[in-house]
């Protein structure tokens, strides 16, 4: 009897801590600054900060051209690559956004 209750409690704890505790959507948008750089803005739909979230710029083969983090102002600025590229906002599993360089306009 006691063993069964303990098993159920154990299962509840595992399930409870398994998923993401926060129910927010990642958000990211980028623009071309017109001076050879691009800026991306990151955030979450519940207003929580994206500071520290990993940012990567990759070429079509997947090679990383630049990487960094969203800063305290919620922004990441990098040199605009010359050819085709993609920007990746990586806040972990289920919280990744990929933006095509073609969609990054002035």
């Amino acid at each position, binding site marked *: 009897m006691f063993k069964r209750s303990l098993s159920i409690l154990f299962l509840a704890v595992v399930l409870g801590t398994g998923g993401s505790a926060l129910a927010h*959507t990642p*958000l990211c*948008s980028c*623009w071309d600054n017109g001076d050879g750089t691009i800026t991306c803005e990151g*955030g*979450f*739909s*519940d207003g929580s*900060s994206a500071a520290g979230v990993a940012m990567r710029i990759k070429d079509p083969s997947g090679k990383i051209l630049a990487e960094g983090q969203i800063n305290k102002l*919620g922004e990441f600025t990098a040199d605009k690559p010359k050819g085709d590229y993609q920007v990746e906002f990586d806040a972990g599993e289920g919280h990744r956004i990929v933006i095509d360089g073609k969609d990054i306009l002035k």
Partner: protein
Amino acid sequence: MKKTIAACFCLMVVLAGVPALAHFQMVYTPEIALNQGESLDLKLVFTHPFSAGHTMNMGRPEQFYLVHSKEDQSEKTDLMPRLKAIEWTSQGHKGQAFEAKVKVRKMGDYTFVLVPAPYFEGEESIYIQQITKVIANVGGVPGAWNQALGLPAEIQPLDKPYALWTGNVFRGVVLSAGKPAPNAEIEVEYMNHPPVMEKNTFAAKGEVGAPHPAFETMTIFADQDGRFSFGIPRAGWWGFCALGVGPVKEHQGKELSQDGVIWIKAVDMK
């Protein structure tokens, strides 16, 4: 002679019938739930939005600015230099109004605030000043939409004014110089004639008809804590005007009604 007298009488009746209330200051831009930044066209018009009736001549506003907010950041931008005088036409009458082009790019809330010049309403011999807010959002990152700005007359929204479905209940708190205004009288009006931006006019045909005058400009009261709620029956723009709640009661020797206005937009679920 008799015909002239009769005509004059008819005109007097018609003019007397136009409610001096139901004036609504509009700060209008077609879309406030923006997926990404863009250049917004804003029209500032003092008019009767349900009937698209008489448009009053606006003097140059005292203040027009925006506050961009997201997370814990907040930045105010003066928009007075962007103002351009225009003429707004409603049902054949022209009134002086203003427009502005404002580019919004970064994610977050954009609270537009207009403090107009007091308008002299000759029919009631009072001045009216409708301090108006409209709040837009770029990209879905929320900002300080819910926070009061400390305006003399203000409606603090308790529901996101740019993220309302038709059928949602919109709630707010009426504030007078930052403090709740108990039992405030609030006029609610639907923008029944969509604005035609490029022509500075309203669409000629209204979307709905009012079965009775009480439906054109609706009246609700806030409770003893200044709070009110309103169930939104139709998609589109709804204006809320808390009458005379501002602390300044006199202007140039006449009575002044300092009103707080907020505009919200509801969208149908599809």
